[in-house]
Each structure stands twice: as C-alpha cells, then as structure tokens.
C-alpha cells in the first residue's frame, strides 16, 4: 500500500469566486479505499471531474501511474483504466440493465462491430456475471428507467466496473438510497471491488459508511484538504466533527452536486 496510483499536486480550480480546489496535494495508494468527505460545495465532485478529464484544473497536475493525465479527454482517461460512477446515475434509460452493462463491456472490447449483436454470448455472459456479483440478476431485463434509486446506483457502478478499471471514482454511491438498504449495498460493493482488486475513491456523506469501509479519509473543505488519515483518527478530530459531521446533522441545504 505504499505506492501511489494517482497523485495530484498543486491542483487549483476556481468557479468564479468559489475555490473548489485551492492547492490540493493528494495521493491515492494502490489498493486502498479512500473516502472524501466534506461539506456540500467543498469541491469533492470537482476532484472526480478533474481526474476523469471532464474539467481541467487552472493549475497543478494529476498523474496516474506516474503519467500526467491532466488535459486528456474523458475518453482517453477511461482507456488508461480510470472509471467513474455518478451521483445521479447515468444509465441508458431506454435499455435494459443487462444491455447497459453489456454496452460497457462492449465499450471496453471495442464497439466498432456493426453486425454482431451487442448481446453476443461473450458480452452477455460477462454482463450477467457482473450483475450477479452486484446482486442485480433479478432486474437484468428491467428497463433502466423503471428501477428504484438503490438499483439505479448499483447498476451505474456495475457499468463502471464492467470497464475493468484499476481506479474507480464513485460520487456519493449511497446518496438517495434508503437507509435500510444502505449497508447491504455498500457491503456488496466493497466485496466486488476487493475481488476485482480495484482501488477506489468515493465521495461520501454517511459517516457510518466511511468508518466501516474506508482505509483512509480525506476531509475536503473550502478547496483544501483539512485532514487526511485513518477514519478512526480523522473522525475523532474535534475540528473535523465541527466542520463536517456537524453540518451533516443539519441537512437543510442538499445541493444536487456537492
């Protein structure tokens, strides 16, 4: 766990007057589960967006396996082995869950075959295998626009996993999921990711989830990393409790994109 898979140095990005990243240095270690917590609007999603090439930082750089990836397109970055999931699941709504995942499999294997079916045996088997690991077999044939929020979240992540990434960035994997389902979903997720030996970064608001599943926690506050370390240590810090957990107890302003 000593080797950095992803290394961000001096990352800066401002939207108007808001500094989403104000000199971020952050290493993601190979094999770890790193949780990013912090108040809404702190810049957590911005970090995912910068890492996946959706946003370009004003300054600083991100290196993946020692290679600079700032300035590359989302497409090029996916090909290097970095996938993401979304806070608001981005599914192909008119396709079934199985087709959604098979499309991700095809995206990895090469989609430029105009005559062989998407659901050819190899793609279908792999899609079904992934759905089985996520416990989604029962809804494989449901249309994506007919799912509940928990299933949608999992299907969204299943698509990212089908890309066989080495680094997976998840934006609030448990937000919108019913509290009763939450732990089961995260448990499933963690098992799948451990089996696939995927390094994961996840933005999270639920401290129980963080405490139980993260190897390390980074506290993102006003564009800076206010604290970084094992969950037990970081979450016990009074300053962190005041700044992050305190705010979480008053969920008055829930911005759709934190």
């Amino acid at each position, binding site marked *: 766990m000593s080797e950095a898979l992803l290394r961000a140095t001096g990352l800066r990005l401002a939207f108007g007057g808001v500094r989403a990243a104000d000199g971020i240095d952050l290493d993601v270690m190979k094999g770890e589960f790193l949780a990013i917590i912090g108040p809404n609007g702190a810049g957590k999603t911005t970090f995912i967006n910068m890492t*996946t090439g*959706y946003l370009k930082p004003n300054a600083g750089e991100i290196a993946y396996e020692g290679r600079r990836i700032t300035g590359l*397109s*989302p*497409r090029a970055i*996916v*090909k290097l082995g970095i*996938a*993401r999931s979304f806070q608001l699941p*981005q*599914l*192909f*709504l*008119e*396709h079934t869950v199985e*087709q959604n995942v*098979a*499309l*991700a499999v*095809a*995206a*990895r294997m090469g*989609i*430029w*075959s*105009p*005559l*062989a*079916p*998407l*659901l050819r045996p190899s*793609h279908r088997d792999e899609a079904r295998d992934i759905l089985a690991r996520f416990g989604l077999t029962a809804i494989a044939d449901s249309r994506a626009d007919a799912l509940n929020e928990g299933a949608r979240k999992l299907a969204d992540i299943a*698509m990212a996993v089908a*890309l066989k990434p080495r680094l997976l960035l998840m934006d609030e994997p448990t937000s919108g999921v019913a509290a009763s389902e939450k732990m089961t979903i995260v448990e499933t997720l963690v098992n799948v990711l451990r089996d696939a030996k995927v390094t994961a970064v996840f933005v999270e608001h639920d401290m129980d989830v963080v405490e139980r599943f993260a190897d390390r926690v980074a506290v993102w506050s006003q564009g800076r990393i206010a604290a970084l370390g094992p969950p037990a240590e970081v979450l016990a810090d009074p300053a962190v409790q005041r700044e992050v957990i305190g705010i979480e107890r008053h969920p008055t302003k829930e911005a759709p994109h934190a």
Partner: protein
Amino acid sequence: MKRIEPILALALAGAIIAAAVAAPWLRFVLTIALAKGIAVMGILLLLRAGQVSFGHALYIAFGAYTVAFLAPRVGDAVVLLPLAALGAGALGLLIGLFVTRYRQIFFGMLNLAMSMVFYSLLEKLYHFTKGSDGIRVEIMPVAGQALDRIAYEWTIFGIALGLAFALGLLLRLYLASPMGEALAGIKTRETRLEFMGVPARGVLLSAYVLSAMVGGLGGALIALTSRHVTPLLAYWTSSGELVFIAILGGAGGVLGPFLGATAYELIRVYAAASFADAWQMILGASLLLVILFAPGGVWGMAARAVGGRGR
C-alpha cells in the same frame, strides 16, 4: 415481435409483388415506394439517436443526379447504383463531420440548410444541370442486358425489392450491434458514452454516413424509375416527406419505413385520383390520425395486431 418481423416482411413483399402484377400501373408507384423506403431507413437510423434530419432529400437528389450525369458514360444500372451509394456516402462523410457536432433542432436545421444549398446549385448551374427542366434518364442496360421498357421496369422493381430486403436485414443487425445500441445511447445519455471511452460523435457519424448511402441508393432507384430528375428532389418538402414517411411507418423496426412509404405513396395516388384538390389534406389527416391514435405508426399497429409490441 422480432421473430415475426421476417414473416411480416415476406408477407409485405408478397403483397407488393401481387399488387404490381395485378395492376401494372402500380408497379411504378411501388418501385418509388420501395426506393423511398430504402432512403427512409436512413432517417430511422438517425431517429435511433434521437436526431431528426430535415435535409435528407439532399442525398436522394445526389444519388439521382449521379445516375443522370453518369448514365451516358457508364450506362448500366448495376454499376450506377453502387456509385450513387458511394458518392452519397462520401458527401455524407463530408457534411457529417460538420453536422454531427450539433444535436436536436440545430442538427435538423443544418441538414435542411445543406439540402437547400444543393437545391440552389442544381437550379442555378443551368449549364450542367439544365436547371429546373431537369435531366432525362434513358432506359439503360442492366448487368449488360439490353431490355425493353416493360422488362426494364420489372428489373428495377426487382432490384429495389431485393435491396430493400438485403438492406433491411443489414440495418436490423446494425441496430442490435454495439454500434447500433450505442447510437440509441446517444438519445438518452450521450455523456456516459464518453465516460465509457466511446466516441459518441464517431458513432453518430458512422450512422450518418450509412444514412447518406441508403439515401443515395434510394435516389438512384428513383432516377432509374421515374427516368427524369429535377432539383425538386432536393427541395425541403422532399426532406419533410421522408420524415413524414418515417413517422407514418413507425420508427420501431426496419419494416416501418417500407410500410410507411407504401402507405404514403398509395394514399397519395388514390387521394390524388379521387380528390384532385384535396390530396394533401388527406395525407395530412392520415398523419394526424396516426400520431393521435397510433404513435408507433403503421408498424406499431401491425405489431399490436399480431400481439407483440412495436419495439
């Protein structure tokens, strides 16, 4: 439904052949319907991505004029058809590189603009195109065989029917392939494609080039059948007609364009013969009825009649 589709296709082909044999004057109408059906498959392809082209008559006209220009030099329908398709495909690639940057209304209107530019060129370059007089296409040999008029018309009819079948089958495979399903993904979640490493524009461009090729092919068949090409082929109303047929037929399956085109041409012929002044009103009313009561088009109605669903 998918399994019944080939049977329905055979039934439709049988009905078309029977009608063409029973009423020789219908042969012309039905050949045109098949040609338009082939072109409308291109509209269907773009509709999969949620995009409507209001300018695809451009490719019909391009294919038709390719035949008209090259007929005196090449003079064989079997050579002219692939030339028209390839030429239209090349033009589609050129224009597609530009228009596939845009979506929705901008995509539709840019296509319209392109087709109107082509229309103006056909009108104004009288020296080459004979302007609105158009160009006559003589009866030509097919695969080296010199034919009399009747045999020629039957042969073009047969080629149109054969192409409709072959291309319908290919389109069906294409739509179920990763490229086709990614195309449908553009309609609902284009950005997700990019985050999966799939170039959405490339997917749309491929479909656009294919749609231009079938447009060119349809246009070439129209030129070989009507044996007279005019700039009106590229006029915006002709593009509108293609979208009209696509909606009339239904976008659910590859049979839709052919059901739509046959229905369209037959309604037009019979309405024009029975109510000369009101045929456009009758066409409009039929489309209105289809949109109100059968949003899946003729294909959707057929699908429901045999107990499946349109898609």
